């Protein structure tokens, strides 16, 4: 089940030779978990910085550029500040759930990260129901937001949590169905096999029209799923103050904040994997150097992340009823029709194979 990284082949062999098999397996899992935690933290901090620089670029500002080279250490400094802050909370909060909520959010996004195929060998958890796992995990995250809003015992937080619940449950459908459209081509849910299929051309090319529609729906629904503008109903700072995390401070707030950015990256990573060939290079130009797959994967994902930031800094926010109208009256029927169209294309072998 767990594929050891080829770079760490030596460590793997050494572990198995020096201790019992079960022990080695356990140690190896812990090591991999630590590596992913590190990736998680670095990616989160880096994405926050990117977001701030992109926002500054859109808004005629310079953005953070003082701490470290071009502000690279800025978010590190912010995280340190947040760590050192006192954790204030409300007296009347439901203490247990209130403290549990941030971990729900952050653990789910960490789990989703595990199945992302960064490159052929850099893929911690390659299960045969990869896509299903991703969808299932990402819908657990909303429980954290709901719990946080509910247990804070704050009306603004409760409205935010309520909105977030409504929104995520609705857009979950679109995310699932748009990915299902693509699975009609691949015929598998396993992410490594989905990438394998794309050696004959990225799925967005193979599936042409319905794939492009599915991609657009996925990006809209994915943005909504991560509670980002123009779908940031749950926070809506001009309406609800800070929304569901109004009562959180210090590192607990930072967990929500980090999880939002990681979720954004995960949405971009899923789109990269399912539509843009994951770590495959365009036209196979660097096929001979497998390690460059990481570069291609991250480059594609970052372009999509930039797209989501572009949405955020240029669009006004939708109203909560318009949000639901968009999903239930437009995206969902379109999605269902799109699936039928894709099924017809796959049935008649009209996919484009390069």
């Amino acid at each position, binding site marked *: 089940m767990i594929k050891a990284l080829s770079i760490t082949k030596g460590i793997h062999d050494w572990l198995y030779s020096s201790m019992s098999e079960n022990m080695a397996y356990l140690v190896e899992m812990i090591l991999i978990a630590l590596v992913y935690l590190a990736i998680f933290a670095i990616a989160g901090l880096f994405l926050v910085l990117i977001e701030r620089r992109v926002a500054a670029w859109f808004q005629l500002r310079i953005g953070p550029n003082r701490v470290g080279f071009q502000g690279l250490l800025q978010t590190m400094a912010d995280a340190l500040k947040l760590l050192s802050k006192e954790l204030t909370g409300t007296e009347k909060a439901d203490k247990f759930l209130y403290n549990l909520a941030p971990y729900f959010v952050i653990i789910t996004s960490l789990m989703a990260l595990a199945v992302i195929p960064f490159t052929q060998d850099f893929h911690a958890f390659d299960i045969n129901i990869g896509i299903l796992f991703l969808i299932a995990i990402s819908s657990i995250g909303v429980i954290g937001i709901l719990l946080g809003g509910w247990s804070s015992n704050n009306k603004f937080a409760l409205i935010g949590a309520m909105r977030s619940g409504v929104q995520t449950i609705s857009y979950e459908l679109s995310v699932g169905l748009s990915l299902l459209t693509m699975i009609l081509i691949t015929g598998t849910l396993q992410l490594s096999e989905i990438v394998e299929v794309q050696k004959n051309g990225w799925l967005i090319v193979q599936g042409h029209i319905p794939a492009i529609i599915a991609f657009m729906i996925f990006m809209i629904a994915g943005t909504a799923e991560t509670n980002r503008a*123009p779908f940031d109903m749950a926070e809506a700072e*001009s*309406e609800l103050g800070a929304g569901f995390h109004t009562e959180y401070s210090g590192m607990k707030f930072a967990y929500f904040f980090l999880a939002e950015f990681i979720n954004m990256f995960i949405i971009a990573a899923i789109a990269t994997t399912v539509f843009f060939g994951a770590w495959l290079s365009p036209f196979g130009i660097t096929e001979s150097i497998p390690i460059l797959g990481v570069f291609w994967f991250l480059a594609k994902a970052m372009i999509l992340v930039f797209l989501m930031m572009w949405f955020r*800094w240029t669009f*006004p*926010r939708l109203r*909560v009823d*318009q949000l639901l109208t968009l999903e239930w009256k437009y995206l969902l029927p379109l999605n269902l029709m799109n699936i039928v169209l894709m099924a017809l294309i796959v049935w008649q072998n009209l996919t484009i194979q390069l």
Partner: protein
Amino acid sequence: MEETIVETNFKSEEYFINMGPQHPATHGVLRLLLTIDGEIIKKVEPDLGYIHRSIEKMCERDSYQQIVHLTDRMDYLSSNINNEAVCLAVENALQLEVPDRVKVIRTIIGELTRISSHCLWWGVMGMDVGALTTYFYGFRDREMINDIFEETCGARLTMNYNVPGGLMFDIHPNFIKRVKDFIVHFKTKIPEYDRLLTGNVIFHKRTKGVGVLTKEDAISFGASGPVGRASGYSCDVRKHRPYSALDKVTFNEAIKTDGDTFARYEVRIQEMWESLSIIEQLIDNIPEGEYRVATNAVIKLPKGEFYQRVETARGELGVYIISTGTKNPYRLKFRSPGFSNLSLLNHIAVGGKIGDLVATMATLDLVIPDIDR
């Protein structure tokens, strides 16, 4: 608490929520007592007085020159127009004819103030509906106006440039050039505003048909300024009772008939164009002459009642002075546009969502010190 039974067996309960006095959308210390059913607003009750500083009472203590300085602190975004209102009231009472140069400069600076206020409003409007970038665009252009003001009179916001009888100082030699530069700059920027926000489909969805105010209601609530004009109520004081040099210029009164949030938005955008055109007509023809006529060091108004109305960026500002012939007014009342415009909030926001309330409030363009005084 009142319970309403919906057609299904679900029970919904109205609840009460405090919006403000510290809330990002109230733009100051306004407190709204909201009664909400889920997301739908049942009742909005503004609670005022968090920034009340007894300006009207202080006016009874002060001399007329000093009163001018207090008016800056009311609607600080149209500070110069407020100053002008008091000066005009005093000058009319004294039957003092100010030089043409003063009139023209007052009008130019008044219109610049209006543009600067609308720039800020536009940025904040975008922010309230969730488009954060507009804020910085609005402030970029406002900055140029503030720089002009700073060079002219040393202050950027609370200007105190007017005194009864004229202006505090003459304009700076660079003034004309900088204003012309600004006109050229800003003419390219309003279309940019339109590209960023006005044409956005989400923005249309958020604002069209939201917070509709009919013409009859606008009149009966005493709405003025862009709020009244968006409902088709022609209420521009500049047009109906021109003061200073406004009778020498031609401009169109921006009127829309929809009365919704988007109409109020469009009126303000159009007003920026009109203000630019007014400045353009005047900037090349500033007459030579004195910038001030001498008044007595202690101004004593004749016994009687005096009223002066001007159009600030928010609507009609009235200054009502009762004088007993002494150096202080017996009573001074400001009719502030924000107060009347706020009074109709409950009327137009009920039945909408929380997001609608925020969008509606953004287009009422409230400045809280103007309401509380």
